């Protein structure tokens, strides 16, 4: 029961608590029952809300950017020592403020902590910027951004700052996209990206509950990291192999789908697991691409594929132990590149049909499934095969209509079934 209470959405908790006074009045429940329910489903704060994050962060950002603009004026009238003092004073002030916030702990509102952390991150960057300006130091803005991110990262941990974590995610994504250089022949710094990603380990999905990011931030982390890792793979591939990136991308997408989660994490709604949606979406799209005849070749070489393969095998074992059958069904699409090239197109279609059916049957058998996704996949396969067949337009039209009606009927039937089950 405590687990159920912990898994209920905050909005559901709030609804229940709002109903209790009227239920007590109507005699549906007595006072004792209401107290038990209030205690059990007490409104838990998820930490900072998005609005608080935005307003607190915006304030710190504006002050910090203003500071950079003031400093960027480049005060020629002052000597180097004075300008260096200008560089360090804001940083010192920000660090003192952050220390005070840390000492106050949870007695302060979360947005104060966020503002302090973000302000400190910005003043650290401003300090670096002023020093490089005073000494006419060269270098590109991505290089500056890299060091700024590295200096800011500890604040995401110690201040538990989601704003700094977001800045770090977006910043590292921008940095790695800039690093992508198909023509670079000497050592590439892009390989640092996976290490940069490790910097956010405390915020990875499935780990400590107290670090769980709000939904918006989870999406930013999932999208940013996927872009960054795909860019990293793409850069490595262009320097060595040909079509190996399909397999690498599918392995990466599989890892995202079956990323280990705690029991509470598994029980969360799908929209709160963006890594599953993004990974699953990539696998399904690439499988459909394969079903149209684009051969996803399997290359046995490549240390990167071997490493990704080992990671996926470990994650598969963990997913099986947690009985995440729905995710495993989608993850099974990773084997499509192994099918012989001559029959890959048809095997991919059959595999997709299998996955669609599995997702429906899991739900019908009382297990966690995603029947609507399964139905969409089945409909997609039928329409794809109709699309590239030689059947007449009339036949295709009737097929599409039949699929559409079938889809709608299934949806209605499923909704009614779910209502009865509830």
């Amino acid at each position, binding site marked *: 029961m405590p687990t159920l209470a912990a898994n209920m959405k905050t909005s559901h908790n709030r609804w229940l608590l709002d109903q209790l006074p009227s239920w007590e009045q109507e005699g549906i429940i007595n006072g004792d029952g209401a107290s038990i329910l209030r205690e059990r489903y007490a409104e838990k704060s998820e930490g900072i809300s998005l609005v608080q994050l935005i307003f607190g962060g915006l304030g710190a950002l504006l002050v910090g950017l203003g500071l*950079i603009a003031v*400093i*960027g*004026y*480049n*005060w*020629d009238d002052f000597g180097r020592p004075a300008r*260096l003092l200008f*560089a*360090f004073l804001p*940083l010192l002030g920000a*660090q003192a403020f*952050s*220390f005070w916030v*840390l*000492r106050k*702990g949870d007695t302060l509102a979360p947005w104060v902590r966020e503002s302090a952390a973000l302000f*400190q991150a910005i003043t*650290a*960057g401003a*300090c*670096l*910027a002023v*020093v*490089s*300006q*005073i*000494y*006419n*130091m*060269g270098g590109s*803005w991505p290089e*500056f*951004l890299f*060091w700024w991110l590295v*200096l800011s990262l*500890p*604040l995401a*941990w*110690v*201040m538990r700052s989601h704003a700094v974590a977001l800045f770090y995610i977006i910043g590292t994504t921008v940095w790695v996209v800039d690093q992508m250089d198909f023509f670079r*022949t*000497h*050592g590439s710094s892009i390989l640092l990206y996976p290490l940069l990603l490790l910097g956010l380990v405390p915020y990875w999905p499935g780990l400590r509950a107290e670090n769980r990011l709000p939904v918006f931030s989870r999406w930013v982390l999932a999208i940013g990291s996927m872009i960054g890792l795909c860019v990293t793979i793409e850069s490595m591939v262009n320097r060595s192999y040909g079509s190996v990136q399909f397999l690498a991308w599918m392995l990466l997408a599989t890892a995202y789908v079956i990323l280990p989660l705690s029991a509470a994490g598994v029980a969360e709604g799908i929209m709160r697991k963006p890594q599953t949606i993004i990974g699953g979406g990539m696998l399904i799209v690439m499988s459909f691409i394969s079903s149209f005849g684009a051969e996803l070749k399997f290359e046995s070489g490549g240390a990167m594929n071997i490493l990704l393969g080992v990671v996926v095998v470990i994650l598969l074992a963990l997913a099986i132990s947690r009985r995440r059958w729905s995710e495993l069904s989608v993850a099974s699409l990773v084997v499509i590149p192994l099918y012989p090239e001559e029959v890959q197109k048809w095997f991919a279609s059959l595999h997709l049909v299998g996955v669609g059916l599995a997702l429906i049957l899991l739900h019908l058998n009382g297990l966690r499934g995603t029947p609507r996704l399964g139905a969409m996949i089945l409909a997609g396969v039928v329409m794809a095969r109709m699309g590239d067949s030689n059947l007449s337009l009339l036949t295709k039209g009737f097929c599409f209509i039949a699929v559409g009606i079938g889809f709608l009927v299934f949806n209605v039937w499923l909704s009614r079934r779910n209502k009865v089950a509830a």
Partner: protein
Amino acid sequence: MKTSSVVVFGLAALIQWAAPVMQIWKHESVLTGGALVKIKCGAPDPYDPLRGRFLAVRPEQDMVTVPSGAAYSSGQTVYGWLDVGADGLATVTKLSETLPADHLAIELTTSYSYDGKVYITWPFDRFYLNEKIAPEADVWLRDNLRDRKTVVAEVRVKDGRAVLQTLSLDGKSFRDILAERVGH
């Protein structure tokens, strides 16, 4: 407040100071103890949104002739031996892979090599200006390039490291010339 939080915060604060302080220490030692060399260059005017307005500084010399058989890969760090000509301006006359013990040299990065010539990238590429006088630099540079006047980068060099001290024309600092023009 947990001890671990204090420790991590302390380390983070220390690193946030250490990074710029190290840069300051490296550059100050070059500015105060480095040899002054003058390098001929020209400069248009871009803008670094994160660090302020600057002039792009491009030394005229972008290539060094090397002995046949010498091989340098792209992106390699090399040391350019600086020799001062009769006009007081320094040029790179030779490249080596290690810092020479008894000759003034500057750390460079190779771009590419072709036909006995190695194309180089200098370690300084910008000169920061006050926002007020930066636009005036555009006008001034156009006038001076048209008149074929020479812009000179005054650089301090020590142990291979270089710090751009100022840009000058006929011995007069760029900042002073531009400040006079805008009546600063």
